[in-house]
């Protein structure tokens, strides 16, 4: 029979089960895949049905802003990954700086999003608006999906920014250190997931040919 490895046992011996916590975080991300998945499902059906309308709706999207946001998130994944590598080497200050950079980029993303949304709202395009309701059915759906999907994604970015801020605080206090960084690692997993969702949102809303 397989020998039970000591480091797998958690509350029984009072040791922290790092692998268990990581597993828990991955499982949570699986649930998020299904949560966002429901929205992607609706998007894919409606785009199949109204491909021309989706194309028209997306025509006015600001590709520059969307691309900048993509670069921002990809780079923020880079910085948070580096921040963990740093803390593993015991370099708490570089790690803190990298986490701070990640937070700044998250905020920048949200600021750009804010501008994109207000631009649309100023044009009268928002759910249930008179302007929207006059558009073609597929366009109404397109903009509805735009707001819901980027909105929920933005909410996840905001939550991520808040959580990373807590991690930054703990890193500064050395509560997160080379022997105890599971929380930071799991936070990073969440952040990468948020990045991946955007990786899919970007072509689906900005690059419809």
């Amino acid at each position, binding site marked *: *029979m*397989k020998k*039970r490895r000591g480091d*797998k*046992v*958690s*509350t*029984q*011996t*009072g040791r922290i*089960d790092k*692998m*268990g916590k990581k*597993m*828990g975080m991955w*499982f*949570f991300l*699986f*649930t*998020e895949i*299904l*949560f*966002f*998945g*429901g*929205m992607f*499902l*609706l998007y894919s*059906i*409606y785009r199949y049905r*109204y491909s021309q309308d989706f194309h028209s709706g997306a025509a006015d999207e600001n590709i520059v802003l969307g691309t900048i946001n993509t670069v921002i998130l990809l780079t923020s994944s880079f910085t948070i990954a580096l921040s963990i590598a740093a803390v593993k080497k015991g370099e708490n200050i570089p790690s803190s700086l990298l986490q701070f950079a990640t937070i700044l980029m998250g905020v920048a993303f949200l600021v750009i999003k804010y501008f994109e949304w207000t631009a649309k709202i100023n044009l009268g395009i928002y*759910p*249930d608006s008179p302007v929207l*309701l006059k558009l*073609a*059915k*597929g366009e*109404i*759906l397109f903009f*509805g*999906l735009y*707001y*819901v999907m980027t909105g929920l994604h933005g909410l996840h970015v905001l939550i991520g920014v808040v959580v990373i801020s807590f991690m930054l605080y703990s890193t500064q206090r050395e509560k997160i250190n080379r022997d105890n960084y599971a929380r930071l690692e799991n936070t990073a997993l969440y952040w990468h997931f948020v990045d991946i969702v955007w990786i899919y949102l970007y072509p689906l809303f900005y690059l419809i040919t």
Partner: protein
Amino acid sequence: MTPINETAATTSFYERTGKYRWIIAEWMMSTDHKRIGVMYLMALLSFFSVGVVLGFIIRLSLLSPGWLMGQQTYNEFFTLHGVIQIFLFIIPGIPVAFGNIFLPILIGAQDVAFPRINRLSWWLYVTGAILILLSVLVKGRPPDTGWTFYAPYSVQTPANVSIAVMGVFVLGFSSILTGLNFVTTIHRMRAPGMGWFRMPAFPWTLYATGWVQMLATPVLAITLLFIFLGRFFGVGFFDPNKGGDPILYEHLFWMYSHPAVYIMVLPAMGIISEIIPVFSRRALFGYVAVCMSALGIAVVGYAVWGHHMFTSGMSDTARIIFSFVSFLVAVPSGVKIFNWLSTLYKGSIEVDAPLLFALSFIFLFSIGGLTGLIIGSLAPNLHLHGTYFIVGHFHYVMFGGAGFSIIAGLHYWFPKITGRMYSERFAKIGWLNLFVGFNILYFSMFILGFQGMPRRYFDYPPQYHTNHVISTMGSWLLAIGLIIIFANLIRSIFKGEKAPANPWGGKTLEWSIPSPPAHENFQEIPVITRGPYPYEEEAR
């Protein structure tokens, strides 16, 4: 091993820990899986009782439509009955009650992987329950959409749908966290020597259920969110005027709600798999197949949701596929039934209450399952969809199945949880009333449905009257049975004979610790050297 302090090892987990001044704070703030499980159990049974009363009143109304309530109220009654029984009783059901209390013990662990998340799950459950209660109490009418909240009506109705839907959303989150917790617990915290195939069947079903909770519930969450967004912001994903498709609501809704029935029934089957070996003194026949079938049901059950929508307007190809896969899921279910029967065969049978309810499960679930094949076939479904045949079917599988399993588990684990024995005599008298009443109440529904009586209808033409009266009378007998059963259990908590650690001669780990367990499950983590049902080996 960890040094255990004397007090934690010997006093029952009910004794005050002294951490908080008020006992209610001590329990509500507890991260002990046993306390959380007991609190859940009390809540579940309370909501079940409310749901039963609602059902009882619905049946009374149907004796002579209009004498008790009007049409609008009737719609609100069956909506609430469904929401309470499904979201507050049977979906959380066995996992949060018996799963919480016994999973760590069954695998030789001191607690679950994430005790504080477990506590969060409990708090979310309470919050969800309060929100649903509020939807009835606050200004405006209670929801009248049916527990399925179909769009576009759920988006348009002025009733308090938003609060109810928020409540279900919160409950879903609670469920997801429980599933996540249990799956991690089973992976990481089994005692030394307990390989996967030395783990009892009940944890196996909790494992499969945990995956379903994690991978299906989020789809419900987003669907409910769409309703909410539709009501508040006019987002019209299911509104044809805004390009939406109501059938997509049904797809998204049933993508969760079908796997949800496996959340209800898989742990129930797990309990049966525990009870049958003990009361026939035989190892579970085909133990590996039984465990694998739990996974099989979970996987296949993920791809059958369309059978709730055969008359909605789906494509023919989709309907054929969904019907075919629905038939497939009967296979792993059948594996379990045959293996249970084979376990009983030539066993040394003691028909105590746990076994009596377990045998009832097999009988009633089989009827429910077989009628499921009838409605899973496309042609009959055209006639039977939306009729009382469906109502009969799901009450047989959910109540006759999972419900009876819960009662079986209550009796089986009663000595362990309370440290006392219930009265076997009254359990059996209660069973008789419940069983006979149940079949009268629900079998007549198959006939009603076959004759064309639609479900969720407040009123009906005279030709259905007789069967409705018979059904209602069945509900009275059923209610008497439930009252006797619960009165017996409640009384026995206070006046029952003290129970030993192992009154049934069970071989799984919970029977090796005191009744009730101490704060800390095990003085020393056991080292496992044998399978979970060694009856034959020990008899040699």
